[in-house]
């Protein structure tokens, strides 16, 4: 571990950290690197209410709050919640979100930021929050600027972006990732079911979707 290393993860929804980066997060934690999750919303607009239904639109936020707390405990990371509303981030003022995020970055002084790749992250909240996160990092002085690893989700992203710069086999921390996903139990079964769109077996889905994490190194163009 390098001196003063600290990783900040910036995603909008409870469970983004679990599905997108938990294996990588767990690797940092095993090296003793502190990790802070800046979580944008409570996922209030999640659609998975269970079958039979165990949640309503009105009880889902409390359920997801508890799940997020559990997932962060399981990953042994700090949690900061920014209090936006699910599915509204793209309609907020990006400058204000960037300023909000910048306050945390100035305090935490991270060496690495993990966020979504704007324009390649499928959900409008992912794109908007990723863009604000990158803007926030960009506002830091060059000598204070952490690395940024951007998570792209869009199908065929390689056509535009090429292969991800950072590709991790997370078999070593797979159990930690699975535990984080299971902590988000209201959403996990629905989402894992949703991944099962073809004839692929569950083993294959787990292998493809969960045993591998990849990020693009963000490059800031200096003007």
């Amino acid at each position, binding site marked *: 571990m390098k001196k003063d290393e600290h990783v900040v993860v910036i995603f909008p929804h409870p469970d983004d950290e679990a599905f997108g980066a938990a294996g990588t997060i767990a690797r940092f934690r095993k090296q003793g690197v502190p990790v802070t999750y800046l979580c944008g919303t409570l996922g209030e*607009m999640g659609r*998975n209410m269970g079958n039979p239904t165990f949640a309503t*639109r009105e009880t889902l936020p409390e359920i997801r709050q508890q799940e997020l707390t559990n997932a962060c405990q399981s990953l042994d990371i700090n949690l900061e919640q920014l209090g936006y509303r699910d599915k509204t981030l793209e309609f907020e003022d990006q400058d204000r979100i960037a300023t909000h995020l910048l306050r945390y970055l100035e305090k935490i002084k991270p060496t690495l930021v993990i966020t979504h790749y704007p324009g390649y992250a499928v959900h*409008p*909240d992912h794109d908007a929050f990723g863009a604000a996160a990158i803007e926030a990092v960009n506002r830091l002085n060059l000598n204070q600027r952490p690395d940024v690893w951007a998570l792209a989700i869009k199908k065929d992203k390689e056509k535009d972006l090429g292969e991800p710069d950072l590709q991790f086999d997370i078999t070593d921390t797979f159990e930690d990732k699975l535990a984080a996903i299971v902590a988000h139990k209201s959403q996990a079964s629905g989402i894992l079911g949703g991944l099962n769109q073809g004839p692929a077996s569950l083993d294959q889905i787990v292998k493809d979707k969960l045993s591998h994490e990849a990020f693009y190194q963000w490059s800031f163009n200096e003007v």
Partner: protein
Amino acid sequence: MEKIKARLIQDYLNQFVDRPVYIHLETTNGAYATHHNREAYNVGAFIRNAQVTFSQAKISGDETNYRVGLKTENGWIYAEGLRDYQIDQHKRLLLAGHDDQGRLLVTLELSLQPFTN
């Protein structure tokens, strides 16, 4: 939630008539519809804490597809595809429709107090 009982819902709707009511109305096929199926595209609409007063409220349809319509001073509000309901501890009427995997498709909620944020 429980399966809608039309008589019970009608009685409950009547209690909101001619009073200022906060509504939450939403329909969605999810933020990943296109991602999972190129032929589909994302559709949704959402309004929360609109305050309305209606002079008439009616549930119609059957257990496969209940509809609720509210006749307001200057127009109408309705939701379709409602199958489940709950009257919660705040005496709010929550009506919703879900797909076969428990994912929300539509919801109409009525409350005398504003919903949180």
